[in-house]
């Protein structure tokens, strides 16, 4: 559990390896249920987007499974701690297996970096264990010498299937 949540960048412009390490660290914070530290990885104007449609382009006039700003994400994190959060008694656990993130684009002038990460995600609670396959796209930028998430997009391979509860974060 001793992993540092947010490592400062060595230089003003992140290396590919720093981008990759950041994405891997984000998944680890979720798996270790360090949700407050996880939330700190998000910029104040960040969105977490889980489309409902295959190749969805519009989060506003097409429905999504999640399209949440930091306020809504922080509500989820607070709720997970709640004494009367009955759907989390007992708590869910989750587990990410990431392929090595690929750096899709880097634009230092625009302070914009995009990575693409195929992953398997497992969520369990009591006797149930569910496997999801997805691609995570991270849109990152540097703020005060640290990487921050501007947008995390999670495309489920079966985004249009009927799901049971998905209670944590992919």
């Amino acid at each position, binding site marked *: 559990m001793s992993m540092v949540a947010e490592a400062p960048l060595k230089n003003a412009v992140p290396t590919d390896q720093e981008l990759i390490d950041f994405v891997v660290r984000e998944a680890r914070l979720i798996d270790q249920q360090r949700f407050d530290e996880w939330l700190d990885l998000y910029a104040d104007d960040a969105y977490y987007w*889980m489309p*409902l*449609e295959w190749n969805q382009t519009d989060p*506003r*006039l*097409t*429905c*999504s*499974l*999640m*399209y949440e*700003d930091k*306020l*809504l994400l*922080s*509500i*989820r994190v*607070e*709720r997970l701690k*709640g004494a*009367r*959060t*009955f*759907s*989390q008694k007992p708590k869910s656990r989750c587990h990410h297996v990431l392929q090595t993130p690929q750096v899709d684009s880097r634009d230092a002038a625009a302070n914009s970096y995009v990575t693409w990460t195929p992953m398997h995600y497992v969520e369990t609670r009591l006797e149930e264990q569910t496997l999801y396959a997805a691609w995570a796209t991270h849109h990152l930028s540097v703020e005060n010498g640290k990487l921050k998430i501007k947008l995390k997009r999670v495309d489920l391979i079966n985004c*249009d*299937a*009927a*799901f*049971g*509860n*998905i*209670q944590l974060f992919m």
Partner: protein
Amino acid sequence: MPRYAGDAAALRALVRDQEVHRDVYVSEEVFQLEMEHMFPNSWVYVGHDSQVPNAGDYYGTTIGTQPILLVRHTDGTVKVLHNRCPHKGTRITSETCGNTGKFFRCPYHAWSFKTDGSLLAIPLKKGYENTGFEQSHAATGMAPVRHVRNYRGFVFAKINDGGLDFEEFFGESLSSFDNMIDRSPVGQLKVAGGVLRYMHNCNWKMLVENQTDTCHPMVAHESSAGTVVEVWKKAPPGTKKPMAVEIIAPFMSPYEFFENMGIRIWDNGHGHTGVHHSIHSDYSAIPGYFEKMTAAYGEKRAKAILGENRHNTVYFPNIMIKGPIQLLRHFKPIAANKTLVESWTFQLVDAPDMLLERTLMYNRLINAPTSIVGHDDLEMYERAQEGLHSNANEWVNLQRLYSPDEAGQTNVAVNGTSEWPMRHQFRAWTKFMTMGM
């Protein structure tokens, strides 16, 4: 050992004035009888005609557990067909929705059918000569559901010939559909935004009952809505209240709010919460919308349409609509302990986009499998589905604000926390379950 098949008295005994037997939720046999009798005897929602705008467009769904197709026939009317090849039973369509052109073609042996289901052609037809094929069941093609009604775009079907006609079945309850549709300046809705599909390990009736259960939000949703209220309190003073907070926070309204909001009861299990006000009453105005409504209807009528704040209208057996949000939830039975919940959203034609944006946000925040509000509810349904296996008490209590003279009453408005709508749904359940038995 069958306990209920063909035994109307045994089925009636499951529903008492103030309680229902757990077998209505847990018995696989009762579930099968619902599929055989109760659903075919009722007018069941199929889909919206905007899902099939052009000739040849189809949409596959279910009535109870039976696969059916909604299709736009070449003459422009909508038809409802059993989605089964008359040859060997193969499901005809490949996708959930699409366009089949002028005819359906079965992918197995290429029998083809017009879009009203009638048989068009069979390859190597001479093999059926002198076999009496004309008299066979198969020769009639894909069987249509005979009783279909398109009510201002909303398509309902009744499989059995018996039972009530459409007007008798729905009566005054159609006013909730009217209000939802009239919220468009041109009186027209369009399915839009995509459907959320959420699997529930519980009986479908638990979901239907929950739609008028006004004593649970402030308890079961304390974790989600309560957290929203708490987190929002910490926002710097003067911060504009986000749409998401406007949507979720009212779930924490106190008991008095729900008592005073009122419930209306109609015949045949239909009814709605939110007679006077509801959790949808205090949303911010959408710029430009009221002006459009006034231009279309005149100010007085526009105010009357938008002044309705009906919360949930339940149409027996298995849908709920929210007029002010333009949303329809379809509780699709799969097994006694399994239900697929589909939440559909509508665009008000010729109204500002921001209404659809709010509708979709509501759907995502409340009805998605990723929704924290949804998690709260499903946890309760699943615990009930489990708890009902206890033999200590075989009855579920629905007694809240019961009055002995309520059975024959219709179109009455009562205290908003009454369990009358649930008792009423079960009276309808008995009626349509045993009809013709």
